[in-house]
C-alpha cells in the first residue's frame, strides 16, 4: 500500500493502441501493474499485449473495475480523455501526454479536483511504487526494483530517474516516485504531492526535485515550516543557470513577471531547514544525514 496506489489498483490505459501507449503498457505489465483494460475509440473489441480494448472508459470501468487511468492520447484529445476518465469514475488519472494547451488542462484538472479525482500530470513520467510493484507511467523499470522508505516527488522526468538511481545505488529503497509533470498547471503540484506522500506512515524521508518556474517549491517550504509536512526532506532544484523569460524544456519551467527563479526556491528551502543539494549526486548524502538526525 502507498498513498496513491495499492494492490487493488486496476489500470485502464487510454490511447493503448498508439505507439507509446502500447509500448508502455507492456513495460507496465512487466513491472507488475494490473493493467486490466485499454481504450481507443473505434478500436473496441481488439487486444493489445493481451489487454482488452474498449471504445469508452466507462465500459472498461464497468467490465473490469478499473479505478485508475494512464493517458497516452495525443495532446489535442488528452483533456477530453481526462474528463472521460473522471466521469467514468476512476480515482486516479495519470496524464503522460505533453503539449496539452494549458487552458484545457486548467478545466480538466479543476473538474477532476471538484469530483475528488487525483490527476498526476500532464507532461509527466507518472508514478511508480516498488513496494506494490505498480507503475502508472513511463519510468524505466530497472531503476525501481528496490522497495523502501523514500518518497521522491519531482517536477522532472529523467532527473527523477537519475536521482532515484543515485538513491538506490547508495542503499536506499523507494516507496514511491511521483513525477508531477512539467506543465505550469498540473493536477497535483509538487507541494501537494509532498504533502500526500508525507501522510504515508511507510515513508521515512522525502526527496523533492524542483525546478525554475512557479512557486510550488516556496509553498512546499511553507507547509514544511508550518509542520504540515513533518518528514525529513532533502531537495534539489534544477535551473540555477536558466535565463528569465525562457522556457527550459518544460512549459512550466519559466521565470516570469519576476518570479520563479531557482535562487528563490533554494533560499525558501534552506530558510525552513530543508537542505538543498548543489548537484543531483549529493542528494543521497543529504538524505542520509537528514535521516540520522
Amino acid at each position: 500500500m502507498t498513498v496513491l496506489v495499492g494492490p487493488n489498483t486496476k489500470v485502464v490505459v487510454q490511447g493503448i493502441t498508439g505507439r507509446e501507449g502500447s509500448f508502455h503498457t507492456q513495460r507496465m505489465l512487466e513491472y507488475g501493474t494490473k493493467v486490466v483494460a485499454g481504450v481507443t475509440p473505434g478500436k473496441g473489441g481488439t487486444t493489445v499485449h493481451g489487454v482488452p480494448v474498449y471504445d469508452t472508459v466507462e465500459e472498461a470501468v464497468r467490465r473490469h473495475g478499473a479505478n485508475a487511468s494512464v493517458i497516452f492520447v495525443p495532446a489535442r484529445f488528452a483533456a477530453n480523455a481526462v474528463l472521460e476518465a473522471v466521469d467514468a469514475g476512476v480515482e486516479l488519472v495519470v496524464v503522460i501526454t505533453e503539449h496539452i494547451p494549458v487552458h484545457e488542462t486548467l478545466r480538466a484538472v479543476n473538474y477532476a479536483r471538484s469530483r475528488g479525482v487525483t490527476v498526476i500530470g500532464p507532461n509527466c513520467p507518472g508514478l511508480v511504487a516498488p513496494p506494490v510493484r505498480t507503475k502508472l507511467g513511463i519510468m524505466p523499470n530497472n531503476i525501481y526494483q528496490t522497495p523502501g522508505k523514500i518518497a521522491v516527488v519531482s517536477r522532472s522526468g529523467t532527473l527523477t530517474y537519475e536521482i532515484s538511481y543515485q538513491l538506490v545505488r547508495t542503499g536506499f529503497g523507494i516507496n514511491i516516485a511521483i513525477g508531477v509533470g512539467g506543465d505550469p498547471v498540473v493536477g497535483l503540484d509538487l507541494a501537494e504531492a509532498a504533502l500526500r506522500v508525507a501522510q504515508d506512515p511507510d515513508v521515512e524521508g522525502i526527496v523533492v526535485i524542483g525546478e525554475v518556474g512557479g512557486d510550488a517549491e516556496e509553498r512546499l517550504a511553507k507547509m514544511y515550516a508550518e509542520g504540515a509536512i513533518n518528514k525529513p526532506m532533502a531537495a534539489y532544484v534544477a535551473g540555477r543557470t536558466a535565463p528569465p523569460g525562457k522556457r527550459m524544456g518544460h512549459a512550466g519551467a519559466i521565470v516570469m513577471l519576476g518570479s520563479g527563479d531557482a535562487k528563490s526556491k533554494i533560499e525558501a528551502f534552506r530558510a525552513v531547514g530543508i537542505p538543498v543539494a548543489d548537484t543531483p549526486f549529493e542528494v543521497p548524502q543529504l538524505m542520509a544525514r537528514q535521516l540520522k538526525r
Partner: protein
Amino acid sequence: MKLHEYEAKELFSKYGVKIPPGRVATTPEEVRKIAEEIGGPVVLKAQVVVAGRGKAGGIKVAKTPEEAYELATKMFGMNIKGLVVKKIYVTKYVEVDREMYLSLIIDRATRRYLFLASPIGGVDIEEIAKTQPEKIKRVYVDPSVGLRDYHVRSIVLWLGFKPETAQWRQTSSIVQAMYNIMVDYDAELVESNPLAVTKEGDVIPLDARVIVDDNALYKHPELEKALEEDPRDVTEFEMYAKKIGFHYVELDGDIGIIGNGAGLTMSTMDLVYHFGGRPANFLDIGGGASRDVVKEALKVLLRHPRVKVIFINIFGGITRADEVAAGVEAALAEEGGTNKKIVVRMKGTNEELGRQMLAKLGIPLYESAEEAAQKAVELARA
C-alpha cells in the same frame, strides 16, 4: 509566442477597446508616412518582445514627420537586450493623466485566472510588488465560471473609478476584452501597462502585451503564420531545433549542452556552471535517446559557432550506450568531422561497447556526470 505590441493592440481593438491610432512600419520612410497620416506628435515604439524598451531607447516622441523619420533611422537596427529592431509601431502621442497596471495570468497554485490590478502603473509589476505591494489587487476567476460582473466591478473600483461613469464603463469593457482575449487566444499573459487615463478622460491601453500558449498555437493559424514570418526572440538555432522536435534555449557560454529531459538538461547546465564553466545553450532531446535523435542534436551544436566543447549527458533506463555512440559517430560523419571537443556521459546498457566505439573517435565516455562535467570545463579552458 510573444505578440508584438502592435499585434496585441490590434487584438484589443478587435475586442472593442479604443486604442490610439497607429500602424507598424518597417522603414523610416514608412514611419514618416504614418506620422503624416496621423498628424501632430507621434510616438515611435520599437517592436521587440522584451520588457523595458523605454529605458533602452526603444520609445521616442517625434513632434513632426521629419523628426519621426530621423528618429526611425536610428531606431531601426538598434539592438535592445539582444533583439534587433526591425519594426516600429508609430502611434498618435497621447497626453496622459494617470497610469495604471492591469494584467491577466494563470495562477498555478489556485488553478484559476488571476487579474493583477494596480492604480499605479507604467513600471514593472515586480517593481510595484516590491515598493507598494498593498496597491496590487488580486482578482481570481474560476475557469468553470468565467468572468462575471462582480469580478469586473471589483477591479474597476480598485483602479479608482466611480460606478456608472463613462470611465467605469470603458474600463469594464477593457477588463472584459482582456479576459476574452485570454480565453479565445489561449493566452498565458494579457497585460496593459500602462493602462492610462488620458487628459481627455478616456481610458486606453497605452501599452499591451499578449503571450500565447505555444501548445495552442495550432488553433490560431494566423498567429502561427505571423510567428513564422517574424520569429521575434527565437534564434536561428532555437528555430531549427524546434523544427526537429527539440527544446533549445540560447545561452551565452561556450560549452554546448545536450541532455535528455528538461530537468536533467538544466541540471547538466548547472553542473557545468558549478565546476566553473559556462553553458552555451540548453538542448533537451526529450525522454528517450535513439541514435537518430542524438545525431540530429549533435549536428545542431557542431554547427554552432560559439560552442567549443559539447557535453552530452544521457540518463536512460533502457537506452543503449552503443546507440548513443552510433549517433555521435553518424553526426560526425555527416558533418565531416569537427574541431570541437565532445564529452559524453551516459548511463544505460552496453556501456562498454559504447565506450569502445567512442574511444575510436577520441571521445571519452563517463558514467559519472560530475567527472564528465569537470572534463568538459577543463577542455573549454584549454
